[in-house]
């Protein structure tokens, strides 16, 4: 039989079910008539003949039922009836249905929201041609633990040239630009890319053309491609945008075209609104000129293998080619050992269709933890709903008993109950999906409080819808199966007896479910406590400098662009305490290191100390204590003897106690051998990260540092920061019309290093609260049920002279038993879970007493609150009424 035929008959059935039923009726009546007529012919009286004929048929309805079961789509037909029935039940138990749907919506919404982030960060293909073919290029050096994903510009270009291996290679790196006319320049996130970038990825232009290899040539006029979003926002989709001029960092560039909508760079989470060739970088940012050299590894490379060869083959070919071309691509000024290590390195090609992002490494652990958390929330929700359904199942006992007695199979009723569960789950999932869309944006905002604005496409795609549907179905089975089986396990006669509600066998499942919820909630609460305490510890941690009241103004790196009178002008502002310049600020994410040793010792090849070039008042502005000697001053100018301040860690490592000041250092500073005199010792600062130990640090005089170095102005101000920020921006903006002045509190820079911890603390706290709320509902439901069931017993006790307080105790004890049972399982589980996340904790152990005590107290208090209402109701039972009841 053809599929078409089957579909037609199912359709016909659904459309003309009633008509078909009527015709079947006619046919069976005809059968009876014919049979009766023949008996009449044999001499049987008419009435008797009809009775016999009907007997032979066995009744019209049973035959009809059997024919219906033969029909195609019969099961579909039953499904439709079950669904209708389910909706009638929902209407009858509106409050319960709403509670269940809301619980599911929150739990599924939380799961979908986290999954949305996982999807956006890890699973989404780049919107390019055949993304699954793209490979991320990595280089495993002999002496490195992990392969590096960064390449120099010469290597990225050389990879693009390997036509025996690749159809093309795309080197790229995110890069911010100041875009716009003098005075109205604003900061735009952009990218610098190699010439083969767009062709390799297979991105199409919507206007003009995209960058080509001949755009990526040093010395040619600057060309740029803008994103579709930028075209819409800045140019109102002007059709003649290609060919227009755009000032980037004050340099006129030509827009050659607009990339296709949806594509905003290969760095996931970082929008590239303006993309320029790497070769244009020296013109746009002179201080970034070294990036085009062989010594800087900063470009990520996605490559597309040549047609017909796979990743393995491409990798093998590349590793054959590399030793032959390595020599000319490795920086000539590198020491021989480093050159050798590089030439001996091996390329690895990993799947790259989802692009590249530093966020993946950063958020892998937090997202794994969050996924575990939302799964726990979902399990609590399931336990909660299962207990609600169990409680209702005792109400429905009579209805189910009637249906069983009328001959419905147990499987049929279990199916009916499961269909109700699935429908509830799907409705909950629908609402949850809507919640997830909103919650997803909130999550991205949480991540975005960092240094970089993270932008994700969070529109639900089929991954997310499929994930949500899958979660919903799994949920429905988990919370639906036990109540369904229990509800149908009753013998019809028992279920129909008058006493069905009160004498129903005590379910052992319900208390177990509530204890499970307590255990799961405890795990969540302990986790939330640990993450919140970790964040608090980080916030209270003294990093060796004082960020409060300090503002930072960054310039796109360049000393040359800092107006000479800027520092003096800022010093004159009201409320400003001190102002200083430096190349680096603590926790900015950017660091500089060099080798430095006491004079006379051989200077090592490898860097051994952090370096910062700082001007006068730097230590005062950041409140880094000078523990010996003196601070930099105006006297430490370019023509004065070269001086340095070292931190305590450096001093301890290289000098006997107290002898550092006056000592001399030999160091390489920006490629030049310098001898420095130590004039002071400063306190340690955790400049590279709060969790990392304070690195040995050498501060050199900013004025004595040659060249165009990155520069940040730090301003310590008293009073509210808002007006101070405005005043600093105004003062600098007047002097730097080409730059987007970015003035931010140093505390923001410090906070940015805690983004993951803050995200975990916030979300774990929120989910912990949800878990406690759900558990309370579950506990309340159980106790309320128990009190109703034991009304008669309570009445007898009261009549026999029991005190009302004893009755209250009875209910509270019941609650305490459930909580204790839950805690007995939950606490060891929490401890095991905490050990698994040990690496994210800061300043506490997995068995942190404060976190555990807080969790137990919170849950105990919540349980007490949940027990209050049922306990009060129990204490108000009227003995006479209770005994008369039934």
């Amino acid at each position, binding site marked *: *039989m053809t599929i078409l*035929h089957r579909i037609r008959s199912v359709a016909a059935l659904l459309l003309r079910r009633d008509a078909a039923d009527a015709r079947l009726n006619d046919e069976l009546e*005809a059968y009876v008539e014919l049979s009766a007529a023949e008996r009449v012919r044999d001499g049987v009286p008419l009435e008797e003949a009809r009775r016999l004929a009907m007997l032979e*048929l066995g009744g019209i309805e049973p035959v009809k039922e059997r024919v219906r079961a033969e*029909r195609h789509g019969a099961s579909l037909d039953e499904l439709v009836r079950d669904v209708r029935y389910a909706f009638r039940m929902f209407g009858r138990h509106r409050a319960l249905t709403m509670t269940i749907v809301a619980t599911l919506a929150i739990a599924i919404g939380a799961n979908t929201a986290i999954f949305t982030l996982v999807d956006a960060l890890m699973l989404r293909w780049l919107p390019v041609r055949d993304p699954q073919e793209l490979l991320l290029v990595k280089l495993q050096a002999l002496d490195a633990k992990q392969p590096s994903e960064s390449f120099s510009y010469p290597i990225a270009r050389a990879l693009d040239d390997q036509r025996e291996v690749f159809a093309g290679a795309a080197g790229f790196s995110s890069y911010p630009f100041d875009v716009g006319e003098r005075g109205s320049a604003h900061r735009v996130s952009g990218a610098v890319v190699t010439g083969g970038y767009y062709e390799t990825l297979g991105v199409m232009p919507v206007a003009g053309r995209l960058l080509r290899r001949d755009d990526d040539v040093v010395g040619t006029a600057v060309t740029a491609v803008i994103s579709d979003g930028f075209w819409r926002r800045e140019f109102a989709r002007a059709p003649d945008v290609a060919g227009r001029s755009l000032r980037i960092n004050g340099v006129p560039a030509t827009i050659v075209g607009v990339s296709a909508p949806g594509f905003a760079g290969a760095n996931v989470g970082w929008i590239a609104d303006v993309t320029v060739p790497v070769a244009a970088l020296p013109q746009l940012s002179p201080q970034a000129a070294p990036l085009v050299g062989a010594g800087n590894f900063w470009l990520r490379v996605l490559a597309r293998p040549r047609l017909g060869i796979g990743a393995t083959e491409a990798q093998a070919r590349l590793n054959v080619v590399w030793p032959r071309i390595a020599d000319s691509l490795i920086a000539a000024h590198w020491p021989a050992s480093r050159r050798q290590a590089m030439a001996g390195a091996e390329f690895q090609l990993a799947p790259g269709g989802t692009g590249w992002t530093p966020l993946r490494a950063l958020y892998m652990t937090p997202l794994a933890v969050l996924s575990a958390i939302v799964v726990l929330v979902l399990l609590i929700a399931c336990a909660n709903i299962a207990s609600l359904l169990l409680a209702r199942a005792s109400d429905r006992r009579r209805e189910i008993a009637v249906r069983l007695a009328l001959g419905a199979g147990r499987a049929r009723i279990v199916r009916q109950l499961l269909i109700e569960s699935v429908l509830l789950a799907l409705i909950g999932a629908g609402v949850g999906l809507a919640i997830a869309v909103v919650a997803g944006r909130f999550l991205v905002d949480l991540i975005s409080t960092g240094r970089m604005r993270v932008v994700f496409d969070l529109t639900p795609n089929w991954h997310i819808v499929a994930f949500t549907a899958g979660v919903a179905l799994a949920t429905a089975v988990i919370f639906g199966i036990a109540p369904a089986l229990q509800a149908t396990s009753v013998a019809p006669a028992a279920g129909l007896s008058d006493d069905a509600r009160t004498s129903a066998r005590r379910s052992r499942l319900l208390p177990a479910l509530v204890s499970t919820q307590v255990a799961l909630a405890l795990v969540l609460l302990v986790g939330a406590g640990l993450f919140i305490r970790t964040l608090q510890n980080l916030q209270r941690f003294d990093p060796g400098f004082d960020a409060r009241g300090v503002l930072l103004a960054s310039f796109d790196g360049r000393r040359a662009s800092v107006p000479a009178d800027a520092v003096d002008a800022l010093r004159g502002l009201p409320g400003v305490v001190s102002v200083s310049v430096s190349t680096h600020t603590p926790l900015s994410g950017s660091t500089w290191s060099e080798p430095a040793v006491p004079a006379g010792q051989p200077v090592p090849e490898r860097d051994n100390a952090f370096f910062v070039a700082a001007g006068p008042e730097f230590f005062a502005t950041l409140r880094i204590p000078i523990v010996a000697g003196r601070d930099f001053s105006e006297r430490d100018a370019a023509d004065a003897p070269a001086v340095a301040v070292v931190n305590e860690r450096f001093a301890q490592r290289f000098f006997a106690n107290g002898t550092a000041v006056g000592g001399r250092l030999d160091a390489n500073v920006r490629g030049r051998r310098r001898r420095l005199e130590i004039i002071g010792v400063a306190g340690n600062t955790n400049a590279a990260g709060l969790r990392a130990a304070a690195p040995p640090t050498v501060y050199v005089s900013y004025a004595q540092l040659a060249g165009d170095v990155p520069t940040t102005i730090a301003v310590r101000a008293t009073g509210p920061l808002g007006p101070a920020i405005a005043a600093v921006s105004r003062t600098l903006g007047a002097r730097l019309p080409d730059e987007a002045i970015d003035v931010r509190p140093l505390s923001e820079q410090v906070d940015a290093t805690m983004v993951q911890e803050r995200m975990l603390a916030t979300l774990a706290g929120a989910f912990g609260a949800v878990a406690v709320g759900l558990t309370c509902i579950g506990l309340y439901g159980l106790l309320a049920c128990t009190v109703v069931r034991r009304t008669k017993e309570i009445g007898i006790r009261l009549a026999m002279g029991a005190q009302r307080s004893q009755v209250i105790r009875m209910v509270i004890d019941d609650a305490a038993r459930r909580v204790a049972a839950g805690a007995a399982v939950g606490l060891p589980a929490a401890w095991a879970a905490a050990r698994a996340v040990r690496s994210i904790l800061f300043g506490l152990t997995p068995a942190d007493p404060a976190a555990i005590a807080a969790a137990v107290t919170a849950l105990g208090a919540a349980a007490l609150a949940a027990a209050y209402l049922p306990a009060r109701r129990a204490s108000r039972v009227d003995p006479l009424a209770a005994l008369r009841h039934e």
Partner: protein
Amino acid sequence: MAKLDVPQGTLDLMILTILAREPMHGYGISQRLAALSHDSFQVNPGSLFPSLYRLEQDGKLKAEWRPTENNRTAKYYRLTAAGRRQLEAHRQRWEQISFAIASVLEGA
């Protein structure tokens, strides 16, 4: 003689065989089946009608309402081309089976 139930799986074959001669209604089929089997087989309407419906849905039979000899209307079934092919296939298989069974019984 005791009445036999129609062996499992053979009712379709018998229905198709009976309808191959001429179109017939449900009651007629059950009567004809009884007559042809010398009253050995008794088919329960509760089995007959579901079979008829399934065969009709599968396109092996076609049905129409026609007056009977004694002026009632009844639903007459007749074989379609697909029904004829099915009959042929079933009959061949049945003959193989019965030959095989007979061989086993005689040879044992």
